[in-house]
């Protein structure tokens, strides 16, 4: 019997099957990666030195980027929201409008995106280079767990620095809105800050906090994972870096929408 027509028919099915299995397989690996890291995060000895280094790298060295983007975001908000509100004669609400957009949305999202660009890509490249130059294998054969030495410090640093960076972004942004709204456009200082206190709830701050905290996990998880499993050679690392930035950014926005719809 001639089996060729059957095989030709089955080939697309076969490759579809292989692609789905591959995708499922790497999704499983992706999930297990975080699971393992979280597990090791609670097992001493803790690598405090490595952790502080990562806080410095992800947090401290992103400060200028955060301050710059925070200030301009606040100023743009101040200007645009003022112009919009003045059409309804309700400029008095500029303060709460700026503060709420920053605290609930723009602060967490924009600072996460900026840190992804500044530190996330570098993190993927660094871990990827350690992979291709066998430094990760060297840790493994020294019977030192690369998860504990390399990955846990990164993720814990992300969890701690992202909310702090976001808080800074919010504060600088609110000040930027103040510069434009009060200093430039003539709103009274008391109105700007007073209305803010009336309208901004603790719940808004918690929303921003949970967002920034989960973005910290997402960005460090994706970037560390992509570096850890980067392909061969310089090309493998550069591809991993691109993927890490794209995937982090997409996940930030998707997760932001999701949290925005479940959190108060």
């Amino acid at each position, binding site marked *: 019997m001639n089996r060729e027509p059957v095989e030709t028919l089955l080939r697309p099915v076969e490759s579809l099957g292989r692609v789905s299995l591959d995708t499922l397989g790497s999704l499983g690996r992706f999930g297990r990666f975080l699971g393992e890291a979280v597990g090791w995060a609670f097992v001493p000895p803790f690598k405090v030195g490595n952790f502080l280094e990562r806080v410095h790298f992800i947090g401290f060295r992103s400060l200028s980027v955060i301050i710059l983007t925070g200030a301009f975001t606040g100023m743009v908000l101040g200007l645009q929201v003022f112009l919009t509100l003045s059409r309804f004669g309700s400029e008095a609400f500029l303060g709460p409008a700026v503060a709420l957009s920053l605290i609930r949305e723009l602060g967490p999202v924009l600072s996460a995106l900026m840190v992804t660009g500044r530190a996330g890509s570098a993190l993927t490249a660094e871990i990827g280079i*350690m992979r291709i130059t066998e*430094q990760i*294998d*060297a840790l*493994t*054969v*020294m*019977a*030192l767990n690369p998860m504990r030495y390399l990955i846990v410090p990164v993720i814990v640093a992300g969890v701690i620095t992202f909310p702090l960076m976001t808080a800074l972004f919010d504060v600088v942004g609110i000040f930027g809105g103040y510069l434009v709204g009060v200093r430039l456009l003539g709103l009274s200082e008391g109105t700007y800050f007073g209305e803010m206190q009336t309208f901004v709830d603790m719940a808004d701050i918690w929303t921003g906090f949970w967002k920034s905290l989960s973005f910290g996990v997402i960005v460090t998880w994706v970037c560390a994972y992509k570096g850890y499993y980067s392909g061969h050679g310089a090309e493998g690392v550069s591809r991993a870096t691109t993927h890490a930035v794209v995937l982090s950014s997409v996940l930030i926005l998707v997760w932001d929408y999701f949290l925005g719809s479940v959190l108060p």
Partner: protein
Amino acid sequence: MIRIENLHKAFGAQRVLQGVTLEVLSGEIMIVIGRSGGGKSVFLKHLLGLLQPDAGGIWVDGVDITSLRGRAMDRVRERYGVVFQGGALFDSMSVFDNVAFPLREKTDLSAEEIAARAEEKLTQVGLGGMGHKNPAEISGGMRKRVAIARALVTEPEIVFFDEPTTGLDPVLVNAIHHLILDLHRKFRFTAIMVSHEIPEIFGIAHRVAMLHEGVIVETGEPQAIQRSANPVVQQFIRGEIEGPIHAT
């Protein structure tokens, strides 16, 4: 004793190891030779537990390490010292810290004791006083020597060398070989070394094994290998172009 039996490994359609069988006695220096791309590094990575074989077993003192995971494999690795082909130095640390690192992480020695041992090992590989440099600032040959110092600083029982001397000048090749022999005399470790240094290796190996097309085609003492009747071995150690091995 390390016993490797019928080890198979393929990457996709490429069959790299096709039934490697080899015994390495305790305290012996076994040197594995074979063509570039022939699977020597892949073979070593199986012994280190970095790759899992498709079939076959590896016994280290009677324990099959291919079935070991996590802590159990780490206990075997604690007896190992490894010199990777590319050095695999941590480039976030200075040369000195690279050598001191295994002691800091795996022993309870005092800081002074660690500093003394690390400096001693660096001096033995001819790099005394170079500890403050970064791996990125030193030459390829120096990186190899730092990797050797780092592998030996914990005085391991079993040492793996993946081409420890490739790319070094002839004087250094001899110096490194002498260093390995010296340290071997002192610590009696088992050494499995991949090397292309023919004929120098015949002066330091206890036995030599040739890996060719996925199998060990011959094992024997240096004189026996040099007199081998196997045309593959003869062609390889003479570096001839004509013969059963095709230069591609």
